[in-house]
C-alpha cells in the first residue's frame, strides 16, 4: 500500500485536535486529523453555551487569513481545510519509526452507509426498530441503530451502530438512494468452511445460515475440511477442535498457507479452551464456545461485515499530536451513590447542558422528570474529582466554572430559577473567572454552599431530589430540589490505555498522558505530543493554548527530523479574464437519485432553465458526486468553455474542493461556479406535490443562476509580503521560550528585554511544586537564547514606536548603548510578564516577621531560615487579591504556599503551619500537593473576604493572627514567628506597550486577547500575539505552553511568503460615503476606521472577514461586499418571487 505523507497526525478531533490541526494547516503543513467518533467536535459538539459569553463562538477559531483555504461556517457543523484530511470512526492502531518519519497504522471502522450516496433524508432512521439511548443527548433521548451522531454536521450522513443493529434490513429497503451497504451481494464471495464433527451442529448451522447468502461447506471431519479448503478460495474457516481424524492445528495451518488472510475461528468446549488459546497465538482469530448457538449467525454477520468493510490506512507522519480529551466521570460507577437511576431528577452536568440546548431533548426548557418546570436547582461539585477513594486525587479544574455557567444559564432560561452550588472550594482561577462568579452570586442570586455532598438518598416522600448537608455551624440541613446536577469530573478518555500502547507513550498515575516537568506538550516519546486535556484536565482556553503548544512542537519536529521532501507546490491557478464576456452558463443537473427523477419532470425543468437569458446549455449527469459523474461535468466544461457553471445537486459544501480543481482545469475562477441544493425539497416528508415541487427546484436553480450571472471576479485582496522575522517583547520565560521555538524553526527573532539581563520573574524561583530546578532551567534557557544564531537579543531596550500590520511591522527600539534602532518584522509576540504585588496590609514592610511567599521561598532556599528554631508559621492567601480592584486569582500563590508549607514541614515535622485561605486553588494535578500538605499536618483555616484575618504584633514583632474559623464557629488566634503573605501577580507596565501597539488591556491591566476561549494568545489586531503573565497570571508550565502557542501563531505568518486575506471583503465607494461611521461601529473585526486626514473610511483587508455587516447598515450602498452586489441580491430576490406556476411552453 502506498503511504500517504503528512507533516503531522492529530488524534482526536475535539477542540484541541481541531486547533492543533488548524495551527499546522495554516502554517502550510499537511495534517491528518482522526477521531474514533463518527463526528468531529468532541464534547463541544454537545455544548451550546460557553462562558464568559454564555454562547458558543467556536467559529472564532477559523482562520482569519488565507480564509479561502478553509470552510467558513459553523465549526460544530464541520470543517474543511485544504491542508487537513479528516478520517472519522478511526483509531490509531500502531505507531512505529522515529520522529520525522513515523509510520502510523489507522483502523477505520465502516459506518456501512455510503457517504457519496446518503442524502441524509432520515428514512432509514424512521423505520429502524431499535431504540437505544442517544449519546448526543447524554441519553435523554433515544436513537435507532442507524442514526445521525450529531444532528448538525455538514455533510451529515447516517451511520450504523453495528452492535445494536438487529439486521432486519428495514433501513436497507427504505433507503431511496441505496446508500446502506451491508455487503449482501458480496457475501457470495465470502466462502465459509465449517468443520464440525457433530452432525447435529452441522444440521443446525446449515439451517441457520440457509438464507444468509454465504457459500457454506459443511465438513464432517478434518479431511473433508482440507478438501474443501483446497477446492476453492475460502474466507473463513470454522474449525471445531473436536475433529479427530486430522490434528486441527494442521487444518488451520494448511488453510492459512493457502489463504494468508483466512479467518480461522475455533470452536472449543471447556476441555479444549486452553488449546484454543494456544492456537490463537498461532494464527487463529478467536474461539467460540461449543456447542454453537443460534447467535453465531449474528456473530458471523458482524464479523463478516467488519472484515470486509473496515479499512486500514497506512500513513507516514512527521509528528503525532494526541488530543483525545477526556471522558466525564460516570457517576453510575459509584452505584446508586448519587441516586442515579433511583432518584428521578439527578442529572449530570452534560445532561443538563443538553437540556439547556435549543436542539436538546427538552428544546431548552428546564423540566423535572415529571414534566413540571425545574426551578430549584442544585449543583453537586467534585463528583468523581478530588476523591482519592474513587481514584481521582486531582481536581478536574473545569467543573466549578461550568457549574456556575449552568447556574447562570438556568437563570436566563427561567428568571424564577434558584441555583445552589455545593462546593468545598470554588475554583475560579482563570482569567476573569472571579468576576464571572461574583456576578453569578450578586446578579443571578446563585447560592454557594461550602460543603461536599456525599450522596443522594432516595426518599419517596420527597417531591424532588432530597439533599442533606451539614452547614458550617453544624446544623444538618435538608432541602428538596427539582433537579440535582452532578458536576462530573474529567477522567482519562475511554481506550486511552490502548491508545497509549499504540502510540508508545506512558500514562501517569491518573491515566492521563505523562508529561515531563516544564515541558507541557511533551509525552514520554519523542515526536509524540499531547494537546488539550489529554495530559491534564483543562478548560477550553487552556486546551486551545495547549493545542497550540503541541502544534508548535509537532511542526518543530517535522522541520528538524523529517527528511526533506520535494513538495511540488501546486502553481497558483491561472484564470482567464471573463469579465468582458457576456455570461454563458452551463447548468448541470445531477439526477442520479430517484427522489428527484421520479418526482420532477426533468426535461421540463431543463427547458425552463434553458429559458434564462444567460444559460447556454442544460445537461443532466448521473451522480455528479461520483467520479464518473464529475468527469462528465469536466468534459462538458472542456467542450463548452462556459464562463459560468451552475450545478444542481445535493450537499453543496461537498463540492468546494472539486470546484477549485475544475477551475484550475478549465481556467475559470471558482467564483463563477456554484452548486445549488435541489434535493432537500425532494426528500420524503418534505416534498411538496407535483408542479409546486418542480417550481421549488426551478426557483432554487434560477436564483443561483441569476446570482452567478451577475458575479464579478474578485481578486484576492491584501496579498502582502512577509518579513521573515519576529519581534519578541520581553525576555522572561515566555519570551525566551517563544524566541527559541521560532528560532529553532529557522525564523529570525529579535528579542527585546528592558532589564539588563534575561530571566524575568521566573528566574526568581528556587523550587517548584513537585520538584525540578527552575533556576537551572532558566539559566540554561537564557544561555541557549544568547547563543542561538537566529536570535538577536537587546537587553535594556524599550519599544518606542511601532507601525504596520501582520506580515510587516516597523518597530523602533531604544537601547542603552546607542541610538534607537528600527526593526522590521512580520510578527510580534508580547511577553512582558508581570510582577509580584507589594502589599500594604498585614504589617508588611513594618515588621520583619512578615514576608511575601517569594521571600520565604528565597530564605528557605538560601538556608538563612532556621526552621528548627521556629515556633510556628502562618500564611494568608489572597492578600489584596480576588477582590476589587485586583479581582482575579493569580493561580500561583496557592501553589507557592503549598510548596513553602511542604518544605517547612519537611524540615521540621512538628512545626505548626497555618494557612488562612478563601479557596485553595490547587486545580488539576496540583491537588495532590494540597492533599499532601493536609496530610503533613498543615492547618488550613478558611476565611471570607468580609471577615479577613486580623494581625497584631507583640513587643517581639511576633504576629498574632486572629480569624473566625467557620468549622469551629468561633475565633481562632495563633501566634507565630513568621507570617507569609500570598500576594499574587499584577501586570507589568502594559499600558505604554498597549499604546505603542494599539492593543487593548482588560480591567486588571493584563492584555485583552481577541477571545478568551477560542483565541487566547491572539489579539484582534492580526500579527501580534500575547503569552505568559502579560496575558494573565500563570505558572511556569502554563507560561511555556502559552509561549509555544503564541510562537506557533507567529510561525503561521512567518512560514508564508505573503499574507493573504479573503476573496470576499468589504469595500467602500468613497464618492457615496457620508462618513457617518455606522459601518465602523458595526464591524465586529475592527477592520474599519475613519481616516480623518483623508476623510474616508479605510478597510484592513486582512482583518475584514467579509461578513457584510457594514453593507447591511450602510443606507446608500457606499459600503459594499465584493461578490454580493445589490443588483445580484435584487435579481436573486426577483428570481425567488412571483414565478407563477404556469405550464411552460415548448422551448423556443
Amino acid at each position, binding site marked *: 500500500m502506498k503511504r500517504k505523507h503528512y507533516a503531522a497526525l492529530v488524534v482526536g478531533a475535539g477542540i484541541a485536535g481541531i486547533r492543533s490541526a488548524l495551527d499546522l494547516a495554516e502554517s502550510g503543513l499537511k495534517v491528518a486529523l482522526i477521531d474514533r467518533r463518527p463526528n468531529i467536535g468532541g464534547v463541544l459538539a454537545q455544548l451550546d453555551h460557553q462562558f464568559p*459569553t454564555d*454562547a458558543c463562538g467556536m467559529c472564532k477559531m477559523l482562520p482569519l487569513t488565507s480564509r479561502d483555504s478553509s470552510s467558513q461556517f459553523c465549526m460544530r457543523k464541520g470543517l474543511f481545510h485544504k491542508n487537513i484530511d479528516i478520517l472519522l470512526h478511526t483509531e490509531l492502531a500502531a505507531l512505529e519509526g522515529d520522529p520525522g518519519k513515523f509510520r502510523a497504522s489507522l483502523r477505520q471502522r465502516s459506518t456501512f452507509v455510503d457517504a457519496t450516496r446518503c442524502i441524509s433524508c432520515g428514512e432509514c432512521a424512521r423505520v429502524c426498530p431499535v431504540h437505544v439511548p442517544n449519546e448526543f443527548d447524554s441519553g435523554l433521548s433515544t436513537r435507532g441503530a442507524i442514526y445521525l451522531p450529531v444532528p448538525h454536521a455538514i455533510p451529515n450522513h447516517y451511520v450504523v451502530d453495528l452492535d445494536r443493529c438487529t439486521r432486519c434490513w428495514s433501513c436497507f429497503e427504505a433507503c431511496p438512494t441505496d446508500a446502506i451497504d451491508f455487503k449482501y451481494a458480496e457475501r457470495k464471495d465470502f466462502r465459509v468452511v465449517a468443520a464440525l464433527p457433530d452432525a447435529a451442529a452441522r444440521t443446525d448451522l446449515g439451517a441457520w445460515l440457509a438464507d444468509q447468502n454465504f457459500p457454506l461447506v459443511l465438513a464432517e471431519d478434518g479431511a473433508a475440511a482440507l478438501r474443501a479448503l483446497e477446492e476453492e478460495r475460502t474466507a473463513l474457516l470454522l474449525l471445531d477442535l473436536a475433529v479427530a481424524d486430522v490434528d486441527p492445528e494442521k487444518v488451520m495451518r494448511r488453510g492459512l498457507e493457502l489463504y494468508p488472510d483466512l479467518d480461522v475461528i475455533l470452536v472449543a468446549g471447556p476441555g479444549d479452551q486452553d488449546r484454543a488459546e494456544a492456537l490463537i497465538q498461532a494464527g487463529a482469530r478467536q474461539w467460540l464456545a461449543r456447542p454453537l448457538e443460534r447467535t453465531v449467525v449474528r456473530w458471523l454477520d458482524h464479523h463478516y461485515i467488519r472484515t470486509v468493510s473496515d479499512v486500514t490506512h497506512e500513513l507516514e507522519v512527521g509528528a503525532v499530536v494526541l488530543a483525545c480529551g477526556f471522558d466525564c466521570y460516570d457517576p453510575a460507577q459509584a452505584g446508586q451513590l448519587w441516586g442515579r437511576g433511583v432518584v428521578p431528577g439527578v442529572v449530570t452536568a452534560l445532561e443538563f447542558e443538553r437540556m439547556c440546548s*435549543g436542539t436538546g431533548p427538552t428544546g*431548552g*426548557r428546564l423540566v423535572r422528570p415529571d414534566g413540571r418546570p425545574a426551578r430549584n436547582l442544585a449543583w453537586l461539585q467534585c463528583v468523581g474529582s478530588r476523591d482519592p477513594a474513587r481514584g481521582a486525587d486531582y481536581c478536574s479544574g473545569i467543573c466549578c466554572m461550568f457549574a456556575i455557567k449552568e447556574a447562570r444559564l438556568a437563570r*436566563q*432560561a*427561567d428568571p424564577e430559577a434558584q441555583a445552589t452550588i455545593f462546593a468545598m472550594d470554588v475554583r475560579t482561577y482563570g482569567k476573569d473567572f472571579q468576576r464571572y462568579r461574583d456576578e453569578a452570586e450578586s446578579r443571578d442570586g446563585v447560592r454557594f454552599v461550602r460543603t461536599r455532598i456525599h450522596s443522594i438518598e432516595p426518599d419517596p416522600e420527597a417531591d424532588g431530589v432530597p439533599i442533606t448537608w451539614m452547614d458550617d455551624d453544624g446544623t444538618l440541613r435538608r432541602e428538596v430540589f427539582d433537579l440535582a446536577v452532578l458536576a462530573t469530573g474529567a477522567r482519562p478518555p475511554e481506550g486511552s490505555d490502548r491508545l497509549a500502547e499504540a502510540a508508545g507513550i506512558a500514562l501517569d498515575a491518573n491515566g492521563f498522558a505523562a508529561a515531563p516537568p516544564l515541558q507541557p506538550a511533551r509525552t514520554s516519546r519523542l515526536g509524540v505530543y499531547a494537546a488539550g486535556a489529554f495530559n491534564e484536565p483543562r478548560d477550553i482556553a487552556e486546551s486551545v493554548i495547549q493545542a497550540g503548544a503541541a502544534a508548535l512542537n509537532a511542526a518543530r519536529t517535522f522541520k528538524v527530523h523529517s527528511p526533506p521532501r520535494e513538495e511540488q507546490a501546486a502553481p497558483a491557478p491561472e484564470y482567464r479574464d471573463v469579465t468582458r464576456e457576456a455570461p454563458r452558463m452551463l447548468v448541470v443537473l445531477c439526477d442520479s437519485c430517484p427522489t428527484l427523477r421520479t418526482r420532477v419532470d426533468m426535461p421540463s425543468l431543463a427547458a425552463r432553465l434553458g429559458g434564462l*437569458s444567460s444559460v447556454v446549455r442544460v445537461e443532466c449527469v448521473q451522480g455528479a458526486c461520483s467520479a464518473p459523474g464529475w468527469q462528465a461535468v469536466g468534459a462538458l466544461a472542456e467542450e463548452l468553455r462556459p464562463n459560468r457553471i451552475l450545478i444542481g445537486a445535493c450537499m453543496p459544501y461537498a463540492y468546494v474542493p472539486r470546484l477549485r480543481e475544475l477551475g484550475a482545469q478549465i481556467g475559470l475562477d471558482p467564483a463563477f461556479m456554484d452548486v445549488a441544493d435541489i434535493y432537500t425539497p425532494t426528500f420524503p416528508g418534505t416534498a411538496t406535490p407535483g408542479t409546486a415541487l418542480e417550481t421549488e427546484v426551478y426557483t432554487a436553480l434560477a436564483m443561483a443562476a441569476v446570482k452567478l450571472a451577475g458575479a464579478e471576479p474578485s481578486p484576492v485582496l491584501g496579498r502582502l509580503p512577509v518579513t521573515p522575522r519576529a519581534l519578541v517583547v520581553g525576555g522572561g520565560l515566555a519570551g525566551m521560550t517563544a524566541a527559541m521555538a521560532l528560532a529553532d524553526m529557522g525564523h529570525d527573532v529579535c528579542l527585546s528585554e528592558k532589564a539588563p539581563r534575561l530571566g524575568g520573574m521566573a528566574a526568581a524561583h528556587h523550587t517548584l511544586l513537585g520538584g525540578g530546578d527552575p533556576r537551572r532551567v532558566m539559566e540554561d534557557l537564557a544561555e541557549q537564547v544568547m547563543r542561538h544564531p537566529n536570535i538577536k537579543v537587546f537587553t535594556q531596550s524599550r519599544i518606542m514606536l511601532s507601525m504596520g500590520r501582520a506580515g510587516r511591522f516597523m518597530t523602533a527600539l531604544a537601547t542603552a548603548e546607542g541610538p534607537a534602532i528600527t526593526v522590521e518584522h512580520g510578527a510580534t509576540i508580547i511577553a512582558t510578564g508581570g510582577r509580584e504585588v507589594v502589599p500594604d496590609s498585614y504589617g508588611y514592610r513594618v515588621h520583619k516577621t512578615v514576608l511575601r511567599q517569594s521571600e520565604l521561598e528565597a530564605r528557605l532556599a538560601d538556608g538563612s531560615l532556621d526552621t528548627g528554631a521556629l515556633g510556628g508559621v502562618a500564611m494568608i492567601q489572597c492578600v489584596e487579591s480576588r477582590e476589587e480592584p485586583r479581582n482575579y486569582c493569580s493561580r500561583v500563590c496557592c501553589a507557592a504556599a503549598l510548596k513553602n508549607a511542604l518544605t517547612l514541614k519537611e524540615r521540621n515535622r512538628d512545626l505548626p503551619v497555618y494557612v488562612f485561605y478563601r479557596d485553595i486553588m490547587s486545580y488539576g494535578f496540583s491537588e495532590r500537593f494540597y492533599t499532601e500538605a493536609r496530610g503533613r499536618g498543615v492547618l488550613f483555616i478558611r476565611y471570607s473576604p468580609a471577615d479577613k484575618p486580623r494581625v497584631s504584633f507583640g513587643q517581639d514583632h511576633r504576629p498574632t493572627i486572629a480569624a473566625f474559623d467557620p468549622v469551629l464557629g468561633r475565633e481562632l488566634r495563633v501566634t507565630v514567628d513568621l507570617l507569609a503573605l500570598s500576594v499574587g501577580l499584577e501586570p507589568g507596565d502594559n499600558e505604554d506597550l498597549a499604546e505603542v501597539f494599539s492593543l487593548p488591556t482588560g480591567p486588571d491591566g493584563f492584555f485583552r486577547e481577541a477571545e478568551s476561549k477560542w483565541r487566547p494568545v491572539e489579539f484582534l489586531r492580526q500579527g501580534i500575539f500575547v503569552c505568559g503573565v502579560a496575558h494573565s497570571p500563570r505558572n511556569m508550565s502554563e507560561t511555556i505552553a502559552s509561549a509555544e502557542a503564541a510562537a506557533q501563531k507567529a510561525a503561521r505568518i512567518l512560514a508564508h511568503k505573503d499574507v493573504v486575506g479573503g476573496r470576499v471583503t468589504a469595500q467602500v465607494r468613497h*464618492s*457615496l*460615503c*457620508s*462618513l*457617518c*461611521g*455606522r459601518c465602523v*461601529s*458595526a464591524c*465586529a473585526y475592527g477592520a474599519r476606521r*475613519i481616516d480623518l486626514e483623508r476623510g474616508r473610511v479605510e478597510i484592513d483587508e486582512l482583518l475584514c472577514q467579509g461578513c457584510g455587516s457594514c453593507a447591511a*447598515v450602510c*443606507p*446608500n*450602498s*457606499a459600503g459594499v461586499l465584493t461578490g454580493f452586489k*445589490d*443588483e445580484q441580491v*435584487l435579481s436573486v430576490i*426577483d428570481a425567488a418571487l*412571483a*414565478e*407563477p406556476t404556469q405550464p411552460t411552453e415548448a422551448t423556443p
Partner: protein
Amino acid sequence: MATIARIDIDETGPVRAVQGFLKTLLARGGVDAVLTPAHLVPAGTVMPTLISDPEALERADPLSPAFPLNAARLVSRLTRGSTSGRHVAAVLRPCEIRAFIELVKLNQGGLDNVLLIGLDCPGAMTNADFRVFGLEGDPLERTREFLRAVAGGESRPGGRSLAGACRVCEHPAPEGADLILGLHGADLDRAIPVLGNTARGEGVLTRLGLPDAPGAPGRREALDALTARNTAARDAMFEATAARTASLAGLAEYLSGCVNCYNCRVACPVCYCKECVFLTDVFDYKPDQYLGWARKRGAIKLPADTVFFHLTRLAHMSTACVGCGQCSNACPNDVPVMELFRTVAERTQGAFGYQPGRSPDEAPPMTVFREDEFSEMTGEAH
C-alpha cells in the same frame, strides 16, 4: 433647577422682544452669528437666515408659523468639522433640534460650536397654507395674531389648520436645546421666560444679564394639555394609517400618487446620504428586466420601485424619524408620507426603545449589539 430669565414684551409685541433678545445674544452671548427664520425682503417669505449684523435681526421672526424646511441639515453644515472657533446660535423648533442631534450621531454635524435655542413650538402651517395666511398684511402682526389664536386654543389659528405633523406632535418642547424660549403658557403681552436647559445655556444666560423670572408659570400645564391632545390625535392617525397600509396592496394604493420625485427624501432632515442609493447604478435596470417583469405579471406600473423606494427609506430612516412632517410638506401629490413614516417609526423605534434626538449619547439602533435584546428571535431565552 434651571436658571430662568425673562424677555420683557412691550407694546411692539413678542417678535420684537425676541429680536431684542437675539441682539443681546450677538452682543454679549459669545456667538458670531444667529441662524433664525427671517422674513425675506420684500416678499416676506420666511426662510432660515444666518445673521451676523444686529441690524439684520429686524427681519428675524422665529415665532412665525412658517416652516419651509427643517433647518437641521443647515445647522449640520454650519457645524460639521468646524475648527474655526466661531460660534453660532440657532433658533430651532423642537423637531429641528431632534433631527440635528440625529445628524450629530451620524457624524454629520457637531455640537461644539453651536448654541441651540429651542422654541416652545406653537406648531406650523404647511407651505401652501402659510402662503395664504402669512403673506398678507404686516408679517409680524400676522405672527402675533397666530400666537394669540394658538394660545387661545383655537383649532384653526388664523383660519388655517396646523400642518398634519404638528397636530400629532407629542414633543412640543425643545428638550435638547441649550436655551428654551418658554412660549407655552406665557403671557405674550408681558414676557417670555427663557430657560437655561444645559450648563452651556445657563452660562450664556448669565452673561446676557436679562432680568430674572420667577419661573414659567403655566408652562407645564399648557405643555401637558397640548401633549395630551396631540397624542390622542396621533394615536387615531396611527390607527387609520395602519388600517390603510395593512397589506401590500393597501400600501401600493396608499402610495399610488408617488411619482418618484424624491422630494420627500430631499426634505427629510435625517436622510443624510451624500448620494441616495436610488440614484446609483443599483436601480439602473436593463430594458430586458422591465420587459421580463411585464411578461411575468402581465402589466407593470411605471415608474417601478415607488413602493420599494418608500420601504427602503423606511428601513433606513424610520428609526431616526423625528416626525417633522417635511416629507408630506414637500410632496407634490399630497401622498401622506409623514403619516406612514410615523406609524412605522412607532414600531421600529419602539422595538429598540429608541427615541431619536433624545440625547447625542444614545447610539442609533443597528450600530450597537446587545446580546440580551430580541431574545424572542434569537431563541436565547425562553
